[in-house]
């Protein structure tokens, strides 16, 4: 029969058209993969905040660019004092929210003003911290500095 569908000649047994995929090896593979991934899974998402310390004989700090101005943030238990070059801003009193975290809204606004004045090249900031400040508050302030465009954070103690 030319040009038509082959309907068979009626001889011999008809082959079934449905193909059955054997799913057992696939399920085995899945089970092994799931077991491996569960055993090697890391459930706690941990990151890092890179800081450089003041003083010591660690890595040499890069040479200071003449275009940038020293920006210093003094962190105490009571307030935050931002100093840009020789000018000092009004202290920001520390206000805590319900979770006992420092509210840094005013600091963020001040950082925006500083970035507008100094430009995007200003990336370095020094966080001078008093001895009694909690580590959590320090990390919170460093995180805010990085988020507001100061990724090169140095942590230094308050010079007495």
């Amino acid at each position, binding site marked *: 029969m030319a040009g038509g569908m082959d309907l068979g000649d009626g001889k011999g047994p008809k082959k079934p058209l449905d193909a059955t995929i054997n*799913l057992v090896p*696939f*399920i085995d593979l*899945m*089970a092994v*993969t*799931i077991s491996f*991934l*569960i055993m*090697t*899974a*890391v*459930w*706690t*998402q*941990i*990151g*890092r*905040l*890179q*800081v*450089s*310390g003041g*003083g*010591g*004989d*660690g*890595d040499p700090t890069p040479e200071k660019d003449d275009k940038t101005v020293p920006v210093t943030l003094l962190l105490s238990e009571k307030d935050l004092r931002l100093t840009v070059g020789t000018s000092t801003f009004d202290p920001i009193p520390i206000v805590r*929210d319900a*979770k006992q*975290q420092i509210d840094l809204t005013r600091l963020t606004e001040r950082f925006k003003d500083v970035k507008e004045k100094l430009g995007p090249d200003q990336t370095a900031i020094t966080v001078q*911290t*008093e*001895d*009694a*400040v*909690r*580590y*959590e508050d*320090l*990390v*919170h302030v*460093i*995180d805010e500095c*990085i*988020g507001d465009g100061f990724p090169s954070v140095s*942590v230094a*103690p308050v010079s007495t």
Partner: protein
Amino acid sequence: MAIETPGKRFGKRLRKSKVFGHGHAAHKSTNADLLITPLVDMFVIIVLFLIANFSATGEILNMTKDIQLPTATHVDELELAPVIMISNDDIIINGAAVARVADLSRDDYVTIPALEEKLREQKKETEELHALANDGTAFKGVVNIQGNKDIPFRIIKRVMFSCQGGGYGNINFAVLRGSTGPGGEKTASLP
């Protein structure tokens, strides 16, 4: 009397019962087909979820109940480096306690001599290994500080000075990765 297969034999009254006897239900096939499609679907979803969460670096930090990490949003991936653990009681490096926090509050040193010494030893070992391997990579001096969130800065400061004295100038604070919520509040992935 004919031999019958062992099993329960009910009386005449119950022989034609659908429940107990050989009523209509007894003619149903006892083979039940399991639907594999939902099972395979579930497996695929689980595998995709686990692969999305997969971390090639593995567990760098040893999480303990004594140390509750602070939360931060703008963080980078943690590097494989020596870990200094600071709990409320002890300062531990690579599993060995080097100082007690209570003792540190009493003296007026700038550094922690035992920690500094340990770091110097570690730096020397690392540099010797790199020299033996002749891989040409410079010592980066990276160290991870895993500190409890309630530790005062006077302890952190001494640890940092010790790190720099021991030749580890690239200091990383280990933090829990948080996400900024719609109201600006930060939430950690795990407490």
